[in-house]
């Protein structure tokens, strides 16, 4: 008596192959699409103040360190105090509606609640100053901020991504005086010189995790 259709004969095979593929597919999918490369890059939240780096850093050509002061001396990103904005905007564009929040903060002494864009993974103690000291430019991690109206995360900031550079920083090294230059490209001899550079990021755990 035939209780199963003939077509079922290949079922076991198909099932076996299917399961194998599915397993592989899921692994790949998670590894690839759930990695910060896909989940983090491109994150560009709306900020309380429509501040445009494109205008300030790009067109006006204000150096990063004018607002992000102390960044060469501290681990912190140094989001500038309202004071820094008012430094100019007490005179320039002093009643622009866009700057209402700034003026409010300055008057009321309440901080502007900027939305964090770049966030290194938990438990990683990232230090800006030492990277600048090593000659890694802003653009290497933050991208062409001078072209961004709204700041977006440009790089994955994942551990693997960090390690790539820690293992071979050469492509990201530049003269200390060009740190904030967004458009700097090495000349042939500079490239050669940096290829010789001995500077290297730590690759051991405690280099970043404490």
């Amino acid at each position: 008596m035939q209780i199963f259709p003939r077509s079922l004969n290949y079922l076991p095979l198909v099932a076996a192959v299917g399961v194998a593929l599915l397993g592989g597919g899921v692994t790949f999918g998670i590894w690839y699409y759930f990695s910060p490369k896909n989940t983090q890059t491109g994150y560009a939240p709306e900020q309380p103040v429509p501040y445009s780096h494109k205008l300030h850093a790009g067109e006006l050509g204000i150096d990063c360190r004018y607002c992000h002061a102390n960044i060469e001396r501290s681990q912190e990103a140094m989001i500038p105090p309202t004071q820094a904005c008012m430094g100019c905007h007490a005179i320039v564009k002093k009643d622009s509606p866009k700057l209402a929040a700034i003026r409010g903060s300055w008057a009321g002494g309440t901080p502007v609640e900027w939305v964090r864009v770049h966030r290194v993974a938990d438990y990683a103690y990232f230090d800006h100053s030492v990277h600048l000291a090593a000659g890694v430019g802003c653009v290497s991690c933050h991208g062409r901020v001078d072209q961004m109206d709204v700041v977006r995360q440009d790089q994955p900031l994942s551990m693997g991504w960090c390690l790539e550079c820690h293992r071979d920083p050469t492509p990201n090294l530049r003269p200390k005086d060009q740190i904030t230059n967004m458009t700097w490209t090495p000349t042939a001899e500079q490239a050669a010189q940096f290829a010789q550079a001995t500077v290297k990021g730590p690759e051991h755990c405690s280099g970043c995790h404490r």
Partner: protein
Amino acid sequence: MSSEENTTGMTRTTRTTTDRVAWRSLEEKVDPSRLKDEACGSDVVKQHVGAEELFQLNRRKFLTLSGAIGTLASVEGCIRRPVENILPYTDMPEYVNPGVPSHYATAVSEGGEVLGIVSTSYEGRPTKLEGNPEHPTSRGATSMWVQSSILDLYDHERLRGPRQNGAPSDFASFDKFFSEKIATLKQKGGAGLYILTQPTFSPTYVRTRQLVVDRLPSSRIAVYTPVPNSNAREAARLALGVPAHAIYDYSRAKVVLALDSDFLGTDPGSTLSSRQFANAREMESAAGSMNRLYSVEPTLSVTGSNADHRLRLPAQDIARYARALAAELTSLGVELGQVGSSVKGAQTEGIPEQWIKSVARDLYKNRGQCLIVAGPRQPVAVHALTYALNRALGNSGKTVTFTEPVDAQEPENFDSLKTLVSMINAGRVDTLVILGGNPVYDAPADLNFAEALKKVPTSITFSAYSDETASLSTWQIPRAHELESWGDQQSTRGDYSVQQPLIAPLWGGRTDAEVLAQIAGEPNWRAYDLVKTTVETRGIKGEVAWRKLLHKGISDTRFGAVLGSTPLRDAEIAAAVQRLGSVAPLPANTFEAVFTVDNKILDGRYANNSWLQELPDPITRITWDNAALFSPTTAKQLEIKNGDMVRIKHGDRAIDIVAWLQPGTAAQSIILPLGWGRKQAGTVGNNKGFNVYPLRTLAAPHFISGVTVEKLNKKYALAQTQEHDSMEGRPLAIDATLAEYKNTPNFPEYKSPDPHQTPLWRMQDYSTGEQWGMNIDLNTCTGCGACAIACQAENNVPVVGKTEVARGREMHWLRIDRYYIGDDADEPEVAFQPVACVHCETAPCENVCPVAATSHSPSGLNDQAYNRCIGTRYCMNNCPYKVRRFNFLNYNQEIPETVQMQKNPNVTVRFRGVIEKCTYCVQRIEGARINARRQGRTEVRDSDVDAACSQACASGSITFGNLNDPNSKVARKRKSDRSYALLSEIGTRPRTRFLGKIRNPNPEMNTVKS
């Protein structure tokens, strides 16, 4: 994928609409970032069109594909991690540099001495205290109490504002009430006003108090603290005619005789004493010489456990011993004058002869470079006698000198409290202002202070907590913590420091000086003004000098005259010694109770400090409790076992307390540590241990003979961190006598040899770069425990509580192993051995971790990546030193906000389920490395970095640094012939090495036994 790529990708597609485009990756086909936008509701159509042009597939296939990715992307893109905000300053203070700590010099007065300290603050939030290297009393070191005072500062259970009759009030209404009250009192010249304060080292305080005395002449001042150093002080008054501090210099003493003195532990100024003692004990090589310490005491103290010879004597017999010794010294030709006659015919029953003859001879041999010191428990006469002996032995000006105290008017402690109480009972006290202290809890029981306090019409208590005393007062006002207020301190040596607030008072709060100034009616009664005035009256004038004083943390000039040359008044001393009479030895089967200041929480002031509660007692290794200590033989006679509850009676007073068998306890002494059994200390301190104050009376505040012990058939569980006391004959804490050392200088390595076989695999090359290492010199380590607390403060080490400790789950990264040597349970030799992760070069823990959460750094650190650890605990098993700690539960749950402020921002707070351990303070190392790079240096200098434990260690036993730097402290110490590796035979090649302990017994005394 960078923005450029996208754009090129898209442009390429728009350019070539007909022919198929090859793509390198999926994103190029469909740009996820755009899909994110889409999902987030930006233009959908354009996307699809562009994409469809991009690859000529049939629409169905495409939609499924993009759909899939689209949803994926949208899920991620929109609701990414919780949105975080960054709140910058609006107007940033000039000197603040977020993320970079700033350091402030200040001072704290701790248990009878002033310590200069330097604080580390992040954005105005002090997280750690270190000793001020410029300050002679600390010399960069700290005690466990200083280290843990930072936790007290943030204690969320402190009094949070004024309370009137227990009901919350505010400063405004208090000040109104207070000023009116003072006004009324002023009319009577202050009559009926009593001020109860504590001994002080603050010139400003003394000055303001003088103002009160001058302006309200009929007001009265009482001074009380439960465990004062007043006997020494009164003795000085007796011997010199003026009140004075006796200042000892242990670094110049070849022989030290401690009479019931714990100068390395709980006695005032132990931080400096430890440093000096270590200097005299340190051995560069076998050729060098070291000091010798005799200790005569009823209980095994930290000092006694470091002694070369130790004699167990009931506290009451110490006087007898002192007299016998004095008599022996006179017979050796030491000129004692009248005092000599007073000590004749001293009873020597129960005192081994050699302890009189040999010790006397040893002291005599070392005239001018020996020292006899008596402890605060001993009566005035004994102190006076020691002064006389020291002078007669030619030590004055060398190892002993006297200085003028800050507060010359300080009355005798117990008398002044007694007067106060009698005044209250006589109804002569209308207003009582209590500045700190907790007399309701710790006043002598027969004074019945609680009842007295209730009789006072208006009592105003300035206290950090709503404690036993404050809660009985009409007004309870927050008393500012030393670290959050302006003040000044002058050490017994006369070094003057200004205390600057490290943070605004968390719950408001007044300083003692402020209150006094208010009473005196000073218009500018704010602490800052008061201190500034004092500073100027002391001749430090002008802004520059002021700032220099603040910056340096200590004045250039010393205050308080040295009274070295003042002659001793023999007649008075002799009279006192005569009055002391010859104490009869305790008859058999009678006991004396000795009230000792607790090794951790002192007189109870630190009861609510969880770090100190959990720190194992240096000797008993008990946490979270105290216990009545019995000598093992006595306990056997009384059929008492560890953990039995006993009732200790004296007259009609009795206390119930748990018994503990403590080797080294005098046979007829029962040791009762003070400061426990608090009822209103806070959630940490309440009902921990047993309160022994009820047994303490004015007549005998330090020890009483004739107590009886009754065994109750109840048990009480104590939590110890170390349950096994013997080394089982293993070469762990290796020691030798001086003679043995001179014969075999490398005795430790001889006992614990290094296996010189090479491992199977190729070793990492450690010859270059910084290579971190540590030495721990067992010879100078006193086992005090400051390092353990320093580590806890620096590394956010959690507190787990009594039950978890009992389960064997304490988290201390740095523990101090305490071993007893010798077979006589009553006469143990003690060896201390601090053990933290020793950072093995071939670490057993590293191979076994399945996820590589612990691995080696190029500079020889055994790294532990908490966020990689999955908690198999395999490393913990495989660690021969058992220094790895596992978060069995979430020990960091629900930390009060203020306590969170203490956490070191550069150290991860660990979650449950992960292993943690000593990292050699890697955050400091990395900080120093980053600093060096910032300054364009490739190497870290030896001076740049120090571990928390070695920085705190007063005796300088712990040295840390770069082994590859031949001039570093650590490298030099490494060369010592006493250097050995713990458990070296396993071949772990630890980076922390120990230096063998040396004992220096008197060849004349064949045995240390009594």
